[in-house]
């Protein structure tokens, strides 16, 4: 399958959907599903290809190149699957109100732009697709208006700063080597000196770091993720921030090369250990912040930052298993975080926009399928065995321990144990506990909303039980990046990489679950009682009066809250305020009065004459 067909289908599909929507909503919905499924098919069919097509458009004397290899296939698959799931979910979620045509157009456009990013073979086309993605994401984040507008503004300002940094890097490379084609750059970079390399890595690092929401460039993410429409939150957290990760892999491994990256710096202070420790901070702090959130989507947004930390940590560490773990975690995070955001989306839709964890509860009874999927997604995020998240986190821990970096491993493990707390808080406060009176008669969510959840949830379990299959694709990437190669079996790894066999774990767990269930069945029968019929040890608990889960982790909150103020966000806001004040003062020179302008001109002339008389410059 030629690479350009995928892009033409993606961009063409976006336009077609918009045009069809003008005539009929039903036709548009059918087209949305058709285009998204077609994209998955096209990407899946192109598995195993590795090539580079040059298109001599001769733009500014630079070639436009499309590329297809193991890395781009992997990310293209993530993009198309999560994109399709969110689009199908949108059918029920967005409904008929508002600017629906425009919404679908932007969703498809953002998917197409992301496919463009991963399939482009030179930095110029990558930058162009990058900007298309950034702007269409801006339109989607601001879709709900109101507070969403501010969140989107914050996002786009930070995104633009990132893009400027990236453009600086692109121009520097173009200036130095006269080409922007990735494969040619990779050859030329071998002879570059350290200072230039560092400059390039830092400029691209800022650009990609903003998108990937690495601490300290993360401040746009909590607002944007929570204010965006839920299906787009899934795309945003599932794949859009992963474009930053793709960029990191591309620049660090495919262009600059691991050997040069590892050699950058002196003694203790070097590029890759700084990146490792930034990643460790990115794991730990957001995890604790996530625990204290009371908005379901905000909680998930902070958790996304934490999970990005794992991916960057694995990448920065740069060993075979580390890079494999990071790449695999990218896929896993895309799936389980999409599941979580979509589940919260179902709840939000069904309750009329309630995301406050202190007002929900007991919904597992009204939407059991959604709860089961959210549980699987949550377990995947924690990294419990038999979910995909376990295998990828295991790879990262294992490499950190084996290489003798227990403190980095500690940061990673603490992030996981914090994740248990916030995931349980999310599940408990939304789905467990008391069912409020007003939701007692709630109807089951539509199939178009639960189907994407079930598919993605099944994928999370599949990748946990048989990790060998996705790891084959990951192995191809690791090999093509020149980081080494590893051998994976169907259920994990042989004894030389450390014992892991998820198939055996699965058998043991299933057998024991059956055994215990049988024992439970053989015992005396239980009498089914309503939820409110409880034993309160003699105390009187009026039903429906109290919400038991308000302030679920209050003791912890009292202890850690003073340490967790987002000073970075405060700093940025302060900078923005100062900047605005400064520019406001500069603006005052435009008084609109001609006499003032004449005065400026005369003043400037006088200055020029003065300069010429004193220094004889011209």
């Amino acid at each position, binding site marked *: 399958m030629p690479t350009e067909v995928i892009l033409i289908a993606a961009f063409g599909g976006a336009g077609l959907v918009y045009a069809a929507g003008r005539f009929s909503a039903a036709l548009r919905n059918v087209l949305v599903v058709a285009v998204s499924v077609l994209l998955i098919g096209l990407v899946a069919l192109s598995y195993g290809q590795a090539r580079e097509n040059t298109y001599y458009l001769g733009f500014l004397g630079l070639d436009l190149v499309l590329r297809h290899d193991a890395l781009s296939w992997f990310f293209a698959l993530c993009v198309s699957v999560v994109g399709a799931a969110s689009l199908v979910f949108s059918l029920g979620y967005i409904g008929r109100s508002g600017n629906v045509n425009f919404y679908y157009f932007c969703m498809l456009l953002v998917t197409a732009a992301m496919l463009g990013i991963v399939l482009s073979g030179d930095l110029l086309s990558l930058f162009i697709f990058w900007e298309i993605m950034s702007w269409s994401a801006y339109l989607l984040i601001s879709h709900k208006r109101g507070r969403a507008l501010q969140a989107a503004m914050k996002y786009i300002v930070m995104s633009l700063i990132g893009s400027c940094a990236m453009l600086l890097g692109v121009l520097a490379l173009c200036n130095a080597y006269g080409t922007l084609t990735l494969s040619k750059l990779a050859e030329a970079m071998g002879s570059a000196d350290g200072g230039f390399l560092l400059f390039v890595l830092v400029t691209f690092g800022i650009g990609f770091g903003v998108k990937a929401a690495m601490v300290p460039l993360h401040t746009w993410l909590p607002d944007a993720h929570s204010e965006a429409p839920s299906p787009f939150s899934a795309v945003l957290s599932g794949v859009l921030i992963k474009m930053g990760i793709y960029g990191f892999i591309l620049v660090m491994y495919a262009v600059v090369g691991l050997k040069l990256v590892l050699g950058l710096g002196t003694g203790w202070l070097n590029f890759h250990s700084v990146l490792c420790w930034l990643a460790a901070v990115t794991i730990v702090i957001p995890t604790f912040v996530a625990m204290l959130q009371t908005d379901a989507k905000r909680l998930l947004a902070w958790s996304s930052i934490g999970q990005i930390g794992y991916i960057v940590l694995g990448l920065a560490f740069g060993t075979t298993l580390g890079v494999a773990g990071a790449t695999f975690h990218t896929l896993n995070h895309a799936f389980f975080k999409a599941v979580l955001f979509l589940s919260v989306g179902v709840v939000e839709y069904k309750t009329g926009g309630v995301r406050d964890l202190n007002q929900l509860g007991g919904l*597992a009874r009204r939407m059991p399928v959604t709860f089961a999927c959210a549980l699987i997604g949550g377990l995947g995020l924690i990294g*419990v065995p038999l979910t995909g998240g*376990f295998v990828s986190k295991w790879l990262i821990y294992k490499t950190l321990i084996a290489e003798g970096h227990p403190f980095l491993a500690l940061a990673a*493990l603490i992030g996981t144990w914090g994740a248990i707390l916030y995931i349980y808080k999310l599940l*408990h406060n939304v789905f*467990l506990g008391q069912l409020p009176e007003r939701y007692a008669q709630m109807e089951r969510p539509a199939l178009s909303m639960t189907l994407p959840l079930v598919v993605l949830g099944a994928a999370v379990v599949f990748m946990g039980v048989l990790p060998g299959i996705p790891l084959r694709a990951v192995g191809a990437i690791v090999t093509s990046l020149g980081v080494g190669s590893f051998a994976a079996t169907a259920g994990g790894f042989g004894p030389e990489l450390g014992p892991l066999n998820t198939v055996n774990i699965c058998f043991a767990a299933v057998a024991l679950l059956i055994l*215990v*269930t049988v024992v439970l069945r053989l015992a005396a029968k239980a*009498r089914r009682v309503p939820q409110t019929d409880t034993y309160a040890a003699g105390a009187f608990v009026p039903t429906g009066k109290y919400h038991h889960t308000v302030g679920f982790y209050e003791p912890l909150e009292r202890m850690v809250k003073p340490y967790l103020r987002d000073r970075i966000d405060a700093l940025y806001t302060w900078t923005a305020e100062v900047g605005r004040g400064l520019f406001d003062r500069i603006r005052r020179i435009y008084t609109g009065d001609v006499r003032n302008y004449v005065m400026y001109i005369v003043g400037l002339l006088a200055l020029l004459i003065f300069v010429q008389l004193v220094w004889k410059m011209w």
Partner: protein
Amino acid sequence: MVIVEIILSLLIALGAGVFLVGLSRKVIARIHRRYGPPIYQPVIDVVRLFTQQSISHGVLFDLGVVLSLAGSLVTVLFIPLGGICPLCSSGGLLVVIYLMLFAPLGLALGAGASDNPNASIGVSRKMLLALAYELPLLLVLLSVMSHYRTVSIVEIVAQQQQGWWGAVPLPLSAIAAFLILPAMLGIRPFDLVSAPQEISLGPMVEYGGRYLALITLQGAVHLFVVIALFVNLFLGGGANVGTFLVKVLAVFLAGVCVHAVMPRVRIEDAVKFCWKWPAALAVLQMIIIVLWSSQ
């Protein structure tokens, strides 16, 4: 052969766990200068509970108990019990610490099925207590794994049997692990999750009859798993099942003596304690290891 080993290790865990629970009641009674129930009292209790009537709040309520006991039993299969370890080649220490999550997770899900404030409070405390003791525990485990340069428990035990017990090269880690042992076992001074006189068993408050029987068994297996892990990491495991069980008994009795004379602490104090002394000792040990290995 593997099937026989699996059945054997499950029976050892259940038998030893139930025995330890019975013994603890006797020992505590004697420390309190009471006579105490017979050692086989937990067996009588479980049999009685299985035949008694109970109430259920629905599928999730049942599932929670099943998940919890099955999770504890699965964990047993990955821990070497003095040479018997049916599934050690399928996962090491990292798998074990994750598998140990299933039990509290199951109980928490089950507790969430009812509308009981005590269950909610208990689960919240359990989560916070877990966060509190996991920090030193992870430090301890990472020290052990870094020291022996492996994630396989069998390998760690083998290295100890050739040389010193783990507690000798890693004394601070061993002390830290012993300090958080009561928190992991849920005994005093850290029995604030169940706290019978205060929140009437917390997450378990709604369970009775057959469910309580399974939870009793789960508690016994969990007790055995935690202590077995301690013995494997710091006391050289066991050359055979006999010596292994003797070591388990010794560690347990030491824990029971603490339990018998301590009062219960509040959750804030538990978190502060765990993040102070055990964590400091464990960090110190880890710094020593990092400096030692970088030479």
